[in-house]
């Protein structure tokens, strides 16, 4: 898919962006921290509409995203283009997830949800604690000039990240995650994109909403997104990871909500779930890996601890084996 075919001639030429919008987009120079900060900010403050392909391990999905920033308020529409129809409309942290087939709209509050290109959740100083940040080469991607930002982990507790930041706006057009052997295990890449004020506010409104006369509203996820004391903690948390929140989530087939503790190092998040080890108790540890996603399960007395995140297995094991009751 060539950008000039699909973007309808509204591509921002970086040179033009620099020339016209220079006041707002100061040239970032050679400081990798500044580039990183700019990339994080660009995903929030720019308006853009595009399609990206996400490949993680064996799985691939194509997603349409439209993002508009108005007076500091973010509005976003996300539509996975594979599988049953589904649409997520986001206004800052409020998420509305439409399932036309089930005639259901699910309300939630963004906690861990992370959508490309907004993959940086922390300040650059937090990231600098866990990653060595450097500038890589420049490359032409999707018709735009891009600067690669390299984030190499300072320990073995996380994967390396590569972000391709568009020179004019800072927007990340491509992101890769590498394993310890420098092999790409996850990748996001725009295949079509327009950036700038051409993206109308109407484009971030729900398309599916009008298709169903009477929506069933499920507000339970939004209620459950509130922080609570779960009574559990992680005793040895890898350097750089900080607790985001803890809450209780309903999972299918469980009579009671499950405790969920959420940690982040600024780029990747991990969730720790604790639930009763029933009705058929597991007696041994087990794990599964695919792309960057690692799942580790461990029985703990009458409970079952599950760790899920975009982390190496060793990290999931370290975290999972150090879950204890809060004293």
């Amino acid at each position: 898919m060539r950008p000039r075919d699909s973007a309808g001639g509204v591509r921002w030429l970086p040179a033009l962006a620099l020339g016209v919008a220079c006041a707002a987009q100061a040239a970032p120079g050679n400081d990798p921290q500044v580039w990183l900060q700019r990339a994080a900010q660009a995903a929030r403050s720019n308006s853009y509409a595009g399609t990206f392909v996400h490949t993680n391990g064996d799985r691939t999905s194509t997603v349409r995203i439209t993002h508009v920033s108005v007076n500091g308020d973010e509005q976003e529409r996300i539509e996975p283009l594979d599988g049953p129809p589904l649409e997520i409309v986001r206004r800052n942290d409020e998420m509305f997830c439409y399932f036309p087939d089930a005639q259901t709209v699910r309300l939630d509050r963004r906690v861990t949800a992370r959508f490309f290109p907004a993959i940086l959740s922390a300040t650059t100083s937090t990231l600098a604690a866990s990653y060595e940040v450097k500038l890589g080469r420049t490359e032409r991607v999707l018709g735009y000039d891009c600067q690669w930002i390299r984030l190499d982990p300072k320990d073995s507790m996380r994967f390396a990240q590569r972000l391709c930041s568009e020179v004019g706006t800072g927007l990340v057009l491509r992101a890769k995650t590498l394993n310890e052997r420098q092999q790409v295990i996850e990748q996001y890449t725009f295949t079509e994109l327009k950036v700038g004020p051409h993206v109308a506010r109407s484009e971030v409104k729900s398309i599916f909403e009008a298709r169903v006369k009477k929506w069933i509203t499920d507000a339970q996820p939004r209620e459950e997104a509130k922080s609570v004391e779960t009574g559990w903690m992680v005793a040895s948390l890898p350097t750089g990871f900080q607790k985001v929140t803890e809450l209780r989530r309903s999972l299918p087939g469980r009579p009671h909500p499950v405790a969920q503790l959420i940690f982040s190092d600024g780029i990747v998040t991990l969730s720790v779930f604790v639930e009763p080890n029933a009705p058929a108790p597991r007696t041994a540890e087990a794990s599964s890996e695919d792309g960057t996603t690692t799942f580790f399960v461990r029985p703990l007395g009458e409970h079952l601890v599950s760790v899920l995140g975009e982390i190496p297995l060793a990290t999931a094991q370290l975290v999972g084996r150090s879950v204890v009751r809060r004293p």
Partner: protein
Amino acid sequence: MTQDLSSLMDGELAAGEAERTIRACSTSADEKATWYLYHAIGDSMRGQAPRRLAMPDEVIESLKAQPTVLAPRRPLHQSTFARVALAAAASVATIGVVGWIGSQGGSVPAIAKSNSAIQPVANKSNVANPALDVQDYLAAHRQIPSAELYRPVNNRAPTPGR
């Protein structure tokens, strides 16, 4: 029909359609061959050893005609789009990861969804430890509910419409 088979493997068919597809599959030699072929492709793409099944000769023949994808789990390559095509062909393309942990103590690569009729042979003796569906945890972690996951909501008492 092949689309139906593919959907069946992904657990995406309604009960009636699934029954019809399974019946077609168990009566038609062609459908049966396709069924074996899809699983062989799926297994090899997930880096699993091919399961021990008495594979009909025509399956072996059609496998020979397939492009070579029988490599162990590989990292992504530059040729992402070739992989996209392969993934779509074997109908494993979903948003996020599906999979489960079935065996005790072992590491099992992500495989088909838990409500699929297909279970790895190794799991069948493991009744005391039912498969954990990674999808449940993944949906909670990413806050991206799948349509399939959503079904239980109908059993809850939903809040009246907005």
